[in-house]
């Protein structure tokens, strides 16, 4: 145990508590920053403010600070760090499968005290060196390489800050540990450590618990050993968001069964579509708002620099700015050249089609999105009403076609029986 009178004055102890608090805040920032998947390039940071904590230019994301604040009560800083402060890094795939990758811990070990270190400025400088060690080590674990890939692949890295007992079991049975050096102070030794999984297997979904998924067999940067991702049965207590039920899209062919007469099927589907067209306002099944998680919520590391609230990396993909063959905004519309005696030539028809296609009004998807955000409540209401009218018309169409649909279905059944015979 650290001696009671570790510091000569109460001011020194308060100062030490303040330094330790900021060490925790900056430590969490460093860990989360390193998992954003962004390489820190020269001149990528704003011009240095000369008053950065520990004389290091570490980002100061308010969201990450809030997460730390929730786990580290201001009136119990030393006690909380004595009982350990954790940052959990996990990965979630597009399909909703998730896996805890590593667990970072800040600990003040009371048994490792050193009463000879009294000068507060020395403690401050040494805490800065400890943070440098943390910055260095964050690049060593497999999760760093994985996070660097997240912008181009279909997964997202999440972080969660909590205190108390570490949830090491979530890392699976095969783990490795790394530790920064230990900074001995009169109140105990302060250090960061990381426990990370070496087995990167996840269960694709609940019904395939026994099967293993080869997530990235050739992913050299994930691990040099061509890791096969094995099953990770551990799921956090949080209930999973239900996947939306997708409506059947009649414009897309269903998969054919064996020995199906494709020509007959195609004719039937075409006939069906001409008699009952696909309505405009097809109902969209939207998932209900996800149930609130119990305990501390994980947050995406990528959300930190993007205002749009979205946790899927695919949603960051914007439509390409320019397609070849489509007129750009500034390009003048096409005019057909009139050649004598060429009116009835089949190429003329193609040229007309091309002209119409080329001169089509330019789509402004991204701009529309921005504009729709800035729209007033009234205009949004108007739009909703319009959409509702469309929907009502579609419903009317549906209802009026019910008998026709039944007849068609019966007809199809009869023809199916006939062909089977």
């Amino acid at each position, binding site marked *: 145990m650290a001696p009671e009178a570790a510091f000569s004055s109460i001011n020194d102890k308060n100062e030490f508590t303040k330094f330790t608090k900021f060490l925790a805040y900056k430590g969490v920032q460093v860990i989360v920053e390193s998992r954003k998947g962004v390489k820190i390039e*020269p001149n990528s940071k704003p011009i240095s403010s*000369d008053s950065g904590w520990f*004389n290091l230019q570490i980002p100061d994301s308010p969201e990450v600070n809030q997460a730390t604040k929730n786990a580290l009560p201001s009136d119990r800083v030393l006690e909380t760090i004595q009982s350990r402060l954790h940052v959990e890094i996990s990965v979630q795939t597009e399909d909703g499968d998730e896996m805890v990758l590593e667990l970072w811990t800040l600990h003040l070990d009371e048994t490792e005290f050193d009463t000879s270190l009294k000068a507060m*400025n020395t403690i401050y400088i040494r805490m800065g*060196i400890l943070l440098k060690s943390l910055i*260095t080590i964050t690049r060593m674990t497999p999760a760093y390489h994985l996070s660097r890939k997240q912008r181009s692949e279909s997964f997202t890295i999440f972080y969660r800050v909590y205190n108390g007992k570490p949830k090491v079991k979530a890392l699976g049975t095969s783990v490795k540990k790394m530790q920064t*050096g230990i900074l001995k102070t009169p109140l105990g030794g302060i250090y960061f450590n990381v426990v990370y999984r070496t087995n990167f297997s996840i269960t694709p979904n609940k019904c395939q618990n026994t099967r293993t998924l080869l997530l990235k067999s050739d992913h050299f940067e994930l691990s040099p050993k061509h890791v096969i991702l094995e099953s990770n049965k551990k799921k956090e207590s949080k209930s999973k968001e239900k996947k939306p039920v997708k409506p059947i899209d009649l414009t897309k062919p269903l998969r054919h069964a064996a020995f199906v007469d494709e020509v007959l099927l195609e004719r039937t589907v075409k006939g069906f579509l001409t008699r009952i067209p696909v309505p405009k306002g097809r109902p969209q099944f939207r998932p209900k708002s996800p149930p609130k998680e119990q305990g501390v919520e994980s947050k995406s590391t990528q959300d930190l620099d993007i205002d749009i609230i979205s946790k899927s990396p695919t949603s960051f993909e914007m439509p390409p700015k320019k397609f070849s063959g489509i007129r750009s905004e500034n390009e003048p519309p096409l005019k057909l050249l009139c050649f004598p005696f060429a009116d009835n030539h089949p190429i003329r028809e193609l040229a007309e089609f091309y002209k119409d296609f080329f001169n089509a009004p330019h789509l402004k998807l991204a701009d529309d999105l921005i504009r729709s955000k800035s729209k007033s409540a009234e205009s949004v209401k108007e739009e909703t009403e319009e959409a509702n009218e469309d929907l009502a018309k579609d419903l009317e169409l549906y209802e009026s076609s019910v008998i026709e649909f039944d007849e068609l279905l019966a007809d199809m059944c009869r023809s199916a029986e006939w062909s089977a015979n």
Partner: protein
Amino acid sequence: MNARTITFELSMEGRQVDEVVASIFHTVLFHRSSGKFTYNSEESYSIRTVSYVDVDCDFIDFTYVCCESDLLGRNVKREISEFSDLLRAVDATSSPPRGSISLEFFQKRRNRWPFQPECVPWEVWTVFCELTESRSEHEMHSKHESVVEMLQDKIVFITEIINRHEYVPKMPSRSDADLIFDTSYSDIQPYLFKIHYNLSGTPPVSVGNTVRKLIRDTLSL
């Protein structure tokens, strides 16, 4: 004074030498550099912040962090490249080429006129390199993995050593700043350091030894 000496022994391919050595030296220099000091009076000073950048290696699957300083990057690169070029030019027919390169931190001690200040090393990091050649792609692959794993271990070990704080020169007053820190950099302020190398595989001669030898030679005259 005995300098703290830390040595690493690594075997690697010729093309990996620059990056292996740079990742070790830059990790050490990142820990051993502070922001620029601005002295308000003889004893009171304020320190500016240090920025850092990620460096992805081309010949090893590895990323390390170094101080954001063009000049420091260029200086370290020049020294390591000289060593790497010489090491890779060594005839490898009889035995694999070996060499060592050291990053030595020293402080200067004022001497009586007309002598130059004495350089006293307080920490020396030495990397012994042995060049290997792979006969097959499989062998190259497994060696590459072992270089990365070894390097990770070394980096973690560096953080362990540096946080022990066994000996680091005291923060100097304004008039002594140049005896402890290299103040020639505009963006950072590393402790005074020197990089030197040796190709025979024996430890390189340190600045301190050179000075002592020089004094001995002078006295024997």
